[in-house]
């Protein structure tokens, strides 16, 4: 297990270097985006819809190519270095929960027996070890999302990308998953880039909030949340949390005005 290093001495894992993305029809989705991602960072990309945050995530995932600029990894990316959670749980409906979590290993060619313990650990971490043999349709929305998270972290990746994973869930479930997510990140010591349009969620989760504006999508400013981890329900009701939310809201307002 990796440990998350203190904020000021983290090694860079990935750099987004002056990236532009133009879609057909001259739609500028991203303009001159630069971002240095360091090991252990929990970065939120916060902004209104159309600000290119999901586009940025797809570029980092290697699902599309920048029109100009580069995405540079400090060392070549291997299979299993990257985990992804989409807005929908994106599970294979024909496979059981454990088979769904097994997928990243299966694609690497590993046998089920050789990784059974990892799968069980991941499911335990999201509290679903009792549902190994269930099919996705038997689970609630929140549980499906947990399976999706277990799948993203089962390979203990360096970087997990999350694209508004909790946007479709109710607030109670969302708070619970926020807590669990932080616990998980501390456990496997990974880096997270988290796309959201919720100020409260981004402040609770991240130590760096990258505020973005729309048309064209671009980075407006970065807000540092220096509250120490672990953060829990107490933090969610603290004055410190409220102050950070105010700061982030103000930054977001700037972003909206700039648009």
């Amino acid at each position, binding site marked *: 297990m990796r440990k998350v290093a203190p904020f000021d001495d983290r090694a860079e894992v990935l750099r987004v270097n002056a990236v532009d993305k133009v879609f057909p029809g001259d739609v500028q989705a991203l303009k001159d985006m630069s971002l240095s991602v360091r090991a252990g960072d929990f970065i939120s990309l916060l902004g209104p819809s159309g600000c290119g945050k999901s586009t940025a995530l797809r570029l980092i995932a290697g*699902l599309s190519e920048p029109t100009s600029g580069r995405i540079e990894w400090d060392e070549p990316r291997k299979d299993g270095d990257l985990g992804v959670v989409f807005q929908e749980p*994106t599970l*294979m409906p024909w496979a059981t929960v454990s088979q769904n979590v097994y997928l990243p290993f*299966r*694609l*690497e060619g590993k046998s089920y027996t050789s990784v059974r313990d990892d799968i069980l650990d991941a499911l335990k971490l999201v509290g679903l070890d009792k549902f190994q043999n269930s099919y996705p349709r038997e689970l609630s929305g929140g549980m499906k999302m947990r399976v999706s998270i277990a799948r993203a972290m089962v390979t203990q990746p360096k970087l997990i990308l999350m694209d508004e994973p909790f946007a479709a869930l109710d607030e109670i479930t969302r708070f619970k998953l926020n807590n669990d997510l932080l616990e998980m990140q501390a456990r496997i010591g990974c880096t997270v880039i988290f796309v959201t349009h919720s100020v409260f969620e981004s402040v609770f989760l991240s130590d760096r909030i990258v505020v973005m504006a729309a048309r064209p999508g671009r980075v407006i400013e970065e807000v540092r949340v220096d509250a120490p981890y672990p953060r829990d329900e107490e933090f969610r009701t603290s004055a410190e949390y409220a102050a950070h939310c105010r700061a982030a809201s103000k930054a977001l307002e700037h972003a909206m005005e700039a648009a």
Partner: protein
Amino acid sequence: MTDAPLTGPMGKPVVDAEEARRARKRKIEATARYLLPVAVMILMIWLWDRIVVWNEIPHFILPGPDRVWGSLTGDWPILWDAALLTGRITLMALVIAVVGGAGLAILFNQSKMVELSLYPYAVILQVTPVVAIAPLIFIYVESKTVGMLLCAWIVAFFPVLSSTTLGLNSVDHNLRDLFRIYGASRWQKLWMLQLPSALPYFLGGLKIAGGLSLIGAVVAELVAGTGGVGTGLAFRIQEAGYRLNIARMFAALAIVAAMGVFIFAALSLLSHMLLRKWHESALKREG
């Protein structure tokens, strides 16, 4: 209705009038599902019998149900042999239609070039009536069995091809992205993602192909005549027609229909078995 105490779901006794009403409705619906079609059939057969008797229709024009039943039991050995032959051709045609249709769908899916070159011909083969092609086939194909299989295949493979193609292309986009991120090979993507996604579509096509391969086999038999392969049901129908043995025509027709129903039921069962754990179509819904 009997006076047995009504029970609600899970065998709990019913408490109030509203529940009793609902329980009764459930029971009636469950019985009606089987009773109604049977009642309609009995009524139709009775009507048929009456029409024949009242109008004194001679049996070489329209035999009554009793005569058809007599033919069905009396000519059973002949009809059974014929049914075996037709059934064999139908099943073999269905198997090659499935292999050919699904195989072509996978091939088309893997290679755009192959799809562009061959798809129009698959469509042409599909839209040309098989009755029109069959005589030509029997000119060039020496073996009657092969000719009949070819006819049945031509009608049956297309639904498998088109529905499997649709299925292979209906993969969830996020899942596709996920496979890409994990560096899945083309083979892994096909095997673990596209084929399972295509399964419900394939099974839908299979159900249609089952009925069509029977039609193809019957048409092929009618065109092929008898030489060499023995005689199937369609040939028996034709032959009985020439002899004005209308009762046997009806008896053979009933067997053909029964075979069609059997194939459909078997394929529906197969489909249910394969999908019941996960697919929406196989789920029981409330209300």
